[in-house]
C-alpha cells in the first residue's frame, strides 16, 4: 500500500477522531461543548489510530503522515487516560479519610519529626531560661527588645493592635509559616538533611524565644498567645517535616526500587499530606491573626479553647477515617 492510498483509506477516521478531540479539549472554531461525545467511539478510533501509527512507522511512511498520527494519538491518549482528581466528593473523601489515614501510615516519620522539632525546642528553652543572655546568640539585641515590647502586658492592655493590623499580621503569618513548612518538606530532597536542619533550627529558634520570654516573666502574655494556633501550626510543620523525612529516607534506603522510583513514589504518597498541610496552615494563620492576638479575651478562655483545638487535632489524626472501607 502506498502512503497516499493509506491516507485516502483512513482519512475519514482521522478527521472524525480529530474533531471529537477538538470538542473534548474545547478548542477549534465552533466552540461546541464536549458534552455528548461518545467515549466508546473516541476509544475505538484511538485504538485504530494506534494500529495505523504502528503501521506507518514500520513502513517508513512520510513524516507528515506519521506526524499527523502521532499528534492524534498523543491528544487522544491525554484525553482517555487523564486523571480526574477534583470534585466535591473527592475533597470530602480527602478530609474525612485519606488525609488522617496517610498521616497514620507515616507514623514513624511523624514521630521522628516531632522529636526533631520538639527536642531542640525544649532543650534550648531550658538553656535560655537558665542563661537569658544566650538569646543574643540567636537574635540581635533590637529583636530581643522588640519581643519584650510585643509581649509586655502593657502593650496589650492599651490594645495597640486594631483590626487592620490583625489583617496585616494574617498576611505576614501565612507567608512566613507556610514558607517554613514548605522548606521542611523540600529539604527532604537532600537525603533528609535539609528537613532535619529546618525542623531543628525552627525548634531551637522558638525554644530560645519561649525560654527568654518566660525568664523575663512574660509567660502570662506569651503562652495564651501561641497555645491555640500552635495546635494547627506545629502539627502542620511536623507533618510536612514527616513528608520530607519520608522523601529523604526513600533516597537513602530505596529498597527494591531504584532511587528515582522510590523518590517518585514517596513524593506521590506525600502529596495528600501536603494538601492537608496547606489547609491546616491557613487555619493556623487565621487563628493567629484574629483569635490569638485578641487582647480582650481572658487567658482562661484561650487556654480552654486551645485545649479543645489540641484534642480535636489529635483525635482527628488518630481516630478519623478508621472505619471507612
Amino acid at each position, binding site marked *: 500500500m502506498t502512503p497516499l492510498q493509506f491516507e485516502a483509506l483512513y482519512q475519514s477516521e482521522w478527521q472524525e477522531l480529530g474533531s471529537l478531540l477538538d470538542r473534548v479539549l474545547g478548542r477549534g472554531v465552533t466552540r461546541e461543548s464536549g458534552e455528548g461525545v461518545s467515549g466508546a467511539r473516541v476509544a475505538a478510533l484511538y485504538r485504530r489510530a494506534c494500529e495505523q501509527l504502528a503501521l506507518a512507522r514500520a513502513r517508513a511512511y512520510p513524516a507528515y503522515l506519521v506526524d499527523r498520527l502521532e499528534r492524534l494519538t498523543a491528544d487522544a491518549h491525554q484525553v482517555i487516560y487523564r486523571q480526574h482528581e477534583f470534585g466535591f466528593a473527592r475533597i470530602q473523601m480527602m478530609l474525612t479519610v485519606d488525609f488522617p489515614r496517610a498521616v497514620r501510615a507515616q507514623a514513624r516519620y511523624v514521630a521522628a519529626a516531632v522529636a526533631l522539632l520538639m527536642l531542640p525546642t525544649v532543650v534550648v528553652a531550658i538553656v535560655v531560661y537558665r542563661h537569658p543572655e544566650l538569646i543574643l546568640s540567636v537574635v540581635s539585641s533590637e529583636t530581643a527588645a522588640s519581643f519584650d515590647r510585643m509581649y509586655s502586658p502593657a502593650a496589650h492592655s492599651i490594645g495597640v493592635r486594631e483590626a487592620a493590623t490583625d489583617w496585616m499580621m494574617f*498576611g505576614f503569618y501565612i507567608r512566613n509559616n507556610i514558607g517554613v513548612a514548605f522548606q521542611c518538606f523540600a529539604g527532604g530532597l537532600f537525603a533528609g538533611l535539609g528537613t532535619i536542619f529546618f525542623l531543628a533550627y525552627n525548634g531551637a529558634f522558638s525554644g530560645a524565644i519561649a525560654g527568654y520570654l518566660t525568664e523575663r516573666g512574660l509567660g502570662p502574655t506569651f503562652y495564651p498567645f501561641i497555645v491555640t494556633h500552635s495546635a494547627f501550626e506545629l502539627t502542620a510543620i511536623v507533618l510536612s517535616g514527616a513528608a520530607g523525612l519520608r522523601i529523604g529516607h526513600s533516597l537513602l534506603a530505596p529498597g527494591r526500587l531504584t532511587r528515582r522510583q522510590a523518590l517518585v513514589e514517596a513524593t506521590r504518597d506525600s502529596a495528600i499530606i501536603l494538601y492537608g498541610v496547606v489547609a491546616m496552615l491557613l487555619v493556623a494563620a487565621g487563628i493567629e491573626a484574629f483569635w490569638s492576638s485578641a487582647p480582650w479575651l481572658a487567658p482562661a478562655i484561650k487556654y480552654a479553647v486551645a485545649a479543645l483545638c489540641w484534642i480535636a487535632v489529635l483525635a482527628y489524626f488518630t481516630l478519623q477515617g478508621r472505619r471507612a472501607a
Partner: protein
Amino acid sequence: MVTAETPEGILLELRPAGLGARFCAFMIDGIIRLAIIYTAAFAMAFMGGVGFAMWFILIFALEWFYPVVFELSPAGATPGKRVFALRVVMDNGLPVTAAASLARNLLRAADFLPFGYGFAVVSMLLRHDCKRLGDIAAGTLVVHEPPAASRIALDAVEPVVPVVALAPADQAALIALAARAPRLTAERLDELAALAAVVSGDAGRRGPDVTRRVLGVAYWALGRR
C-alpha cells in the same frame, strides 16, 4: 528525546525543554507576576491594613500557586511557558496531575538553594531529560509542543516510475528528500538529488531536470501514478 509508552504499545516522543527555553519562560512569568504585584499594590494602597494583608497573601499565592493553577488548566503551562510552546506533562506524557503539580512547585524550595535556583540549574544541565529536582521527585517533564510537520507539495511534478527496485528504506529516503525540498536552496537540492539519481536512471548526471525526475520518483513512491 524521551519516549513514553502508552498502554496500546505506541511510543510517544516527548522533547524535553532545555535550560534556555525554560529560563526565558521563567523570566516572562516573573515579569507577569511583578506586574500583578505592582498593580495590586496601587489598588490596595487605598484599603489600609486590610489591603496590605491581602497584598501579602497575593504575593504568597503568586509565589507558590501561580504555576500550579496554570499547569492544571487545559493548556498545561504558565503564560511564560506558552509563549515558548512548552508544556508540563507527566513522565508518561499524560497531563500533569494536581498532586504532581503541587509537589513539583513546592519543591522549588529545594531547587532554589543554595541561591538563584542553583540546584535546579545544575540538575537540568546534568540530565538528558533536563529535569530540575522538583521534576525528578514529582515525575514530571517540561516538553516542547510538537511543531507542525510540513506537507509535501509536489503538484507541479509528474510521477516517474523508478528504473530500479526500491526497498522501503529507499522510498522513505526519497520521500523525506521531497518533503525537505521547499526548505533547500536549488543548488543544494540538485546536489542531494544527484546522489539519488540512480533511481530515475540518471546516474552520474545532475541538474534541474535530474532533480525533477528524482522528485518524480519520490512522488511515485508516495503513491501517485
